[in-house]
């Protein structure tokens, strides 16, 4: 392949105007021909007869043929062609001129126009760009359909349109999240160039640009270029886009970018824990120790809410609803078990600010707007924010709080009823969002009922669900879905005990015990018909801990539970563990402690009878038994449990199980001073597998220390 190293061109002056025409028509997404294919037709049409062949050949020589059979502009010619286009379109504002510019490097265009054009020319140029973008958005041609389809399908269809509606999801904030995650790079590259040129040449036109160019992906890029211009200089810039009368998309983009900035600052904060300051690539202008990053991020959130509060109250209510839903997508935690602090802060600020509306929440229909923002039809679990609102206003407008709480219960009731016919409720107690949701429903129940009879409340709901043995045998799916719903109602009722106590209301301990008993009874029954083990679920443990805390279980009650053993090993472990925690916290007298000790010993002996040597249990059940023996320090049973666990194939053991097994062996060794020959090799093997070197993760440090102490004795 011959390489043309000529730095410039030999086109006559009167032929320079041909270049932008060729590239404008060739790069337009509305035509089907390439620039190379248009060289000859355009030179024939616009060049003088005398030298049109020479000019045509000259321009053609700027292209080279690639192995796909198409002709591409040689790399060395890009600069020349860009300059010729910029020169040629100075007077031109037609579509072809704008398409020609869309092909060029935006950085070069911006530099060139800033230094060579006067403000009036720049103004009209940006207007022309906006006009082309408007047309293409109206025609739904800005997204590259090829990126949505396979090559095979693409071959069969051309001139595809991607409808604007397909980009929108629930709410504007979620739409922009969708654009950010899935669609931003599906905008045709020329459009991204045009948006960049327009915004960077006239950033003051941002709001008007967003108002006029009606496409979320284009608007997203406009805000993106606004931010890249200023993020390292002014992290609070997007806040100022929020003004009375601003269009919804501008406000949405402001919220999105403000919250993204908060996330960015948090990322910098996280880097500060890991890296020396000089090695951190800062993403905003904030620098410690001059600036306190945590305070700055918190202030951004409070200021965002404050700016939104300047809008019409109904709009404010809707935006607050949307933000609360959107926040979980931005501040996604590393693990799902604990709510990130930033989300807690954001929710607190939003709800507290909205709660200040007091009576007007119901009177002025603000609640309806808030609900619309939360979009409950998509995520009914967002009712937790409404319940939080009710809780926040309970002292100021108690009647309204009760009314809102009742509304929450009704929405929730409907949600659960729907889940019965759509495969069952998806709820997981170990997820913080689900825990907060249940807590919110419990709050609503506590606020809307003066003295709720919780057991009766749960029983009434369970009795109307398909939860009898007939249902289990006739329609297993329906039965299984009803079981999930029943667990939900139990959790709500048990949570209500906690909330009532927190609110300073009375709690009947007998009722608490009965409630827990009913749950264990329910799980024992369902366990006979479902393939999972409900007696090992999170719910039974929660019930046990609530009983230990608020149920004041009598010794007789406790021993009866262990004798019947419908509660299962997980609940029993939790019950014993929580009793110990409570005793430690409250500091029992010597006599009480001794008596408690006796009861615990009795419990342990009764439980040991159910356990036997433990070989009859599945691995999952066995691990809960093992944890029970650790809590009770029963070395003989711990040894049985270790032996029983070791009968299972190695594949069954994950890190947590290995640690559990090692703890059992450590307990046995510390009590007996030696290990049975069959077990003797395992501590060394497990220890070196868990901790091959001196590194220990934070969560395991205490365990390791304890194990080392036990095995060293």
């Amino acid at each position, binding site marked *: 392949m011959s390489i043309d190293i000529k730095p410039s061109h030999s086109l006559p002056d009167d032929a320079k105007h041909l270049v932008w025409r060729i590239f404008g028509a060739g790069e337009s997404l509305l035509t089907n021909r390439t620039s190379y294919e248009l060289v000859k037709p355009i030179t024939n049409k616009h060049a003088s007869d005398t030298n049109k062949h020479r000019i045509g050949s000259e321009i053609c020589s700027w292209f080279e043929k690639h192995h796909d059979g198409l002709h591409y502009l040689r790399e060395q010619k890009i600069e020349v062609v860009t300059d010729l286009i910029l020169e040629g379109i100075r007077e031109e504002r037609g579509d072809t001129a704008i398409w020609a510019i869309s092909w060029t490097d935006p950085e070069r265009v911006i530099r060139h126009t800033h230094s060579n054009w006067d403000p009036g020319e720049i103004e009209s140029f940006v207007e022309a760009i906006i006009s082309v973008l408007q047309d293409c958005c109206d025609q739904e041609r800005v997204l590259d*359909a090829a990126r*949505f*389809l396979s090559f095979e*399908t693409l071959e069969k*269809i*051309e*001139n*595809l*349109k*991607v*409808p604007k509606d*397909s*980009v929108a*999801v629930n709410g504007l904030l979620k739409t922009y999240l*969708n654009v950010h995650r*899935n669609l931003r790079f599906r905008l045709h590259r020329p459009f991204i160039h045009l948006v960049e040129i327009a915004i960077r040449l006239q950033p003051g036109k941002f709001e008007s640009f967003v108002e006029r160019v009606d496409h979320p992906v284009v608007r997203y890029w406009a805000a993106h270029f606004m931010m890249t211009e200023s993020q390292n200089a002014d992290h609070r810039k997007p806040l100022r886009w929020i003004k009375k009368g601003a269009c919804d998309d501008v406000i949405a983009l402001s919220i999105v970018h403000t919250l993204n900035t908060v996330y960015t600052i948090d990322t910098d904060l996280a880097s500060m824990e890991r890296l020396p300051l000089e090695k951190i690539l800062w993403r905003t202008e904030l620098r410690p120790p001059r600036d306190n990053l945590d305070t700055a991020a918190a202030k951004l959130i409070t200021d965002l809410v404050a700016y939104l509060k300047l809008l019409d109250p109904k709009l404010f209510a809707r935006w607050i609803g949307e933000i609360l839903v959107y926040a979980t997508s931005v501040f996604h935690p590393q693990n799902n078990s604990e709510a990130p602090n930033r989300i807690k802060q954001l929710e607190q600020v939003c709800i507290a600010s909205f709660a200040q509306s007091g009576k007007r929440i119901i009177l002025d229909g603000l609640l309806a707007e808030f609900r619309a923002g939360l979009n409950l039809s998509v995520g009914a679990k967002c009712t937790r924010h409404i319940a939080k609102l009710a809780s926040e206003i309970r002292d100021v407008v108690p009647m309204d709080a009760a009314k809102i709480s009742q509304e929450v219960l009704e929405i929730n009731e409907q949600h659960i009823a729907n889940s019965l016919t759509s495969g069952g409720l998806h709820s997981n107690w170990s997820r913080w969002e689900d825990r907060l949701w249940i807590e919110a429903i419990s709050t609503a129940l506590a606020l809307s009922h003066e003295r709720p009879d919780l057991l009766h409340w749960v*029983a009434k709901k*369970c*009795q109307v*669900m398909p*939860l*009898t*043995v*007939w249902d*289990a*045998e*006739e*329609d297993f799916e329906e039965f299984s879905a009803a079981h999930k719903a*029943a667990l939900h109602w139990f959790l709500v009722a048990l949570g209500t005990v906690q909330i009532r106590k927190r609110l300073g209301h009375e709690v009947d301990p007998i009722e608490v015990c009965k409630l827990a008993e*009913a749950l264990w*009874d*329910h799980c024992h*029954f369902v366990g*006979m*018909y479902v393939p999972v083990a409900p007696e090992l679920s999170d719910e039974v443990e929660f019930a046990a801990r609530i009983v230990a805390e608020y149920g004041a279980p009598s010794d007789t009650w406790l021993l009866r539970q262990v004798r019947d053993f419908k509660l299962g090993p997980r609940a029993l472990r939790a019950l014993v563990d929580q009793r110990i925690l409570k005793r430690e916290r409250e500091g029992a007298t010597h006599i009480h402690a001794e008596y408690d000790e006796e009861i615990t010993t009795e419990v342990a002996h009764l439980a040991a009878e159910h356990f*036997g040597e433990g*070989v*009859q*249990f*599945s*691995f999952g059940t066995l691990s809960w038994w093992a944890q029970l023996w650790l809590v009770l320090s029963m070395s003989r049973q711990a040894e049985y449990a270790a032996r*029983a666990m070791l*009968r*299972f*194939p190695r*594949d*069954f053991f994950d890190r947590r199980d290995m640690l559990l097994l090692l703890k059992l062996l450590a307990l046995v060794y510390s009590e007996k001073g030696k290990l049975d020959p069959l077990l003797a090799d395992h501590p060394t093997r497990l220890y070196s597998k868990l901790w091959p070197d001196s590194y220990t993760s934070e969560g395991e440090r205490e365990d390791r220390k304890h194990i080392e102490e036990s095995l060293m004795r």
Partner: protein
Amino acid sequence: MTVAEVAQAVGRTETFVRQHIHRKHLVARKEGRNVYIPQNEAVRWARKRGLKIELLKGAHATSFSDKNRVARMVVVTLEVAGAQPKNLFTLIRHRRMHTLGPWASKPDETWISEKLGHGICIFSIDAPQHYCQSLVDNILYGGSLKIEGNEILFSLESTPRGYWAYRDQRPIRGKPPVSPFKNYSAEIVEYWNLSHQLQEEWQGILSEIRDNSLQGIGRLGFSFDRHSERAGNLMIAAAADTIKCSLASNHNNTLNFHVDADEAQSLDYQATVWASHCNDQVFRKVIPVAPGSTTFDLKTDIDHIGFAVYREIDGQCTDLNEMYLIKEVPINMTLVGGPNLEIHNYRDNLKHQSNVSVIQSTINVNLDREATALDRTIRQHWLSGRAWNRECELSRDRSYARFQPDQFDKAVEFFLGLLYIHSEQKELIYFADPYFMHTDIRKDRKLMYLYKRMFEATQRHELRILCAPRRKVREGQIKSVESLDPVSSHAQERANRKRQRKMVESLNPISSHVQVRSFQLLTDNDRNRESTGVFHDRYLITPEQEIIITHSISGWAKNGVTFAKIPYNVYRDEAEWLWSLETGNQENRILVNKII
């Protein structure tokens, strides 16, 4: 049963019965002032003491009749226009009240009904067992049951049949009726309807609905659609729920047999527990039934477990359960992410939907991995041996035979054996092969030999051969470019037919009884240009049997061939229908050309 009822049943005084209760020979339950004795307990006690007991006041009583039992009665009716609804199947399931679960309320004795289509209606009621028994008495006495103003006709034999339905979770065909209770076997009393008409009506409905099962029939709790012979019957199923037994295999080489029962009740039973691996009985034990768990250590891996529980007093098996253990589970996962985007192509007026990201994955969960190397190897040997044994068994009665490419001669011999017909009369034989004589047999010695032998073997009968036109045999598969040109493709087709005819004629005189026809499906769009084959399968139909053949004759030497006898007569119907079509008519959807 009350004390008085027991006394009457054994022909002794109430004092006698009370004394036995007092001495704890007979277990009784106190409810307020009343004392009740479970019927099965009364039977046990009477038999142990050698007393003759007559319980069956109503013939429908099972040994589990009890005042504390609740029943669900489900009546499925069939109503033909203008006629009174009749019982299609009635099932009464009864069990102890406390087994219903913590949320069950007192049975409300209210009928609920649902129309399932096809004239079928389902009525159900929850009521105490004695209430349902009185309904059965009425049915037996009056031949009908009134529900919400509808009178449902029953036509039942007066003498019932008693038997047991056990639990069986093995996926095998032709099982006897399985217990309608998940955790218990059932004692059944069944009244039969011996009318063929109702059975045929029900079978007619079943063939109409085929795969689409009747929504709501699940409420019956019994797979009635698999037991069409029971149409019109009334079945009473008593859950054998005195004790509850379960057997589980953990992955720690143990087998755990668990019993839930009162101490007194369980002493009267014993159980057999078994387990096998690759059909070898590696464990079988008889044990006394005691509440709680009994764990057995196993020395080998297992793939099949079961247990049976027997009542000591009369030896009756009251529970039996068998199941296969799953050794491998393939799980398909499809994660669908991102939004659905609709793309409009206005030029062709097409809409395309696309999901942005789709991740598909298949996981194979192998539960066999904990088996020892010896067990695993034995299992592999057993599986390969089982396949071979089954093939041998089937080959013995010529139902199945498989031949490798190098066994061409044996395949031919087997095939000729299939063509042999005992009848002296002239019979019809159909042979379908889309590629029949598509290759020039005159150049292939082996094929020539096969066709010769085939024609010779069928000479006394009429051999009808069905094939596809040579140009194209499978949908979408165009053999050559010229076939797209209507003129040349027709000419080529004619030439092919001529060649085929010549090939068959070259085997004269032994081919005089042979007729060959080709069948092609003409599409509506372009009748003259496009066509597809009508059939794909290869088969042989003689008056005695229907055999499916995996490969065309021309491929036997290259790919081998398998013959399998099938009992459905589907191909026979298809062949007869195709042969009955008019030949040479271009207007028909299927163009039939007579080759010879």
